[in-house]
């Protein structure tokens, strides 16, 4: 299981990369592995706004549907529209090409460090 050192995490298995006021969000390697082959992604539109903890979309694997929760509040400035035709990128490259949305955020949310996230995963298994 890969947990990059330069990202922050949530208990619901999203990751966040913060650059200035932009937060790029995806699901973790552990999450994609638990889900199995992702076959469908439902993402919000640009301009939609979400509070931290609010559901902003879903990912579906062959067998399971999983809600996506916003790790931080903000306005959607970009969605990864490539996932519509290639949702498998979430499995293949969860921290890269499998990113989900970018939010413009004013929040500073209570996120997990890589070490804390690894503990969350360890407790679940």
């Amino acid at each position, binding site marked *: 299981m890969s947990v990059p050192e330069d990202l922050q995490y949530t208990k619901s298995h999203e990751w966040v990369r913060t650059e200035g006021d932009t937060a790029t969000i995806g699901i973790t390697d552990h999450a994609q592995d638990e889900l*199995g*082959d992702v*076959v*469908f992604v439902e993402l919000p539109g640009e301009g939609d706004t979400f509070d931290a903890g609010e559901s902003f979309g879903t990912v*579906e694997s*062959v*067998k399971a*549907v999983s809600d996506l929760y916003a790790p931080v509040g903000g306005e959607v400035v970009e969605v990864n529209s490539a996932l519509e035709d290639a949702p498998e990128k979430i*499995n293949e490259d969860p921290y890269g090409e499998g990113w989900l949305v970018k939010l413009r955020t004013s929040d500073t949310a209570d996120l997990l460090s890589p070490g804390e996230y690894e503990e969350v995963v360890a407790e679940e298994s």
Partner: protein
Amino acid sequence: MAKEGLRHTPLYEEHKDLGARLVDFAGYEMPVQYSGIQAEHRAVRNHAGLFDVSHMGEAIFRGPDAESAVQRLVTRDVGRLDVGQAGYSAVCYEAGGTVDDVIVYRREGDFLVVVNASNREKDLDHFRENTEDLDVEVADESDDWALLALQGPEAARLLQDLTGTDLSGLKPFRFAWGEIDGARSLISRTGYTGEDGFEIYLSGGDAPRVWRSLVEAGATPAGLGARDTLRLEAGMCLYGNELDAETTPLEAGISFAVHLDKDPHFIGQRALLLEDTGGLRKKLVGFEMEGRGIARHGHHVTSGAEIVGEVTSGTRSPTLERAIGLALVDPGVEDRFEIVIRDNPVPAKTVPLPFYKRDRE
């Protein structure tokens, strides 16, 4: 780590060694996937996949009245089966609802009825309660047998290398005793994937060795996840989804397994005859999503503001690369409707079943 209270098939250690993801299924810790559902699905469609389905139940009917007992319990006329022939059938309640869907094997001197793992105890009770007046023994041999399903266009070639039984002489729904890699096996040309293939009944002691031989010969281990997407593409029913106590086999579209003119009569025959002449209360349809989204079991089917049915199974079809599903709908429903996915009505249209049919040589 083994989960408490769950049962294991004789192939449990093989699954662990292969790194399978194990889930609770009908009280068994079973592999849902190894490498990934879609890769396993494609292996079965294009090459050969190997499933452990040892959790299935095996009931044997023995004694002078064995045939009368089976005839009373199942919707198919098993009097028309030859020795060495198997038939898909439903088991019904008096009111026509479905107890289970089963495969009946007419063997030399007895009948083997293979039942769904989740229904095993219920079925055995039903079988015994309804045949008390007959001279028949209904034995539960589920724990005595392992069951492998080898499925796919290369299944026959792979298996032929390991057995002296001439598989070209074994037509669909025929079975024979033989040896596979030295293990005495009942080899049946049946399956649940829409591909050519075999179901192999053998002792639990022999199963791991035969499993390993088949994997070494090139069969891809496949889990229950792929089994479900494969059967759904093939338009086959799953008990608990398309079939249940409230749904008759006619409604679920398996009338080919129901001989309404059967004599001797089966339990539920009167109710099914009445429904057949009076009209179905609901019917099973196949559909394809026209909008974005994947229908799932339990989603409502709507036509405008009206609820006209319920999705029984839905997935994204790995072969067709489209979202497909089965639904039980009002008989008069139009061929376009909506599936309500998380409060959002998404357009769908009916399509003929099965979704996928293999090319036959």
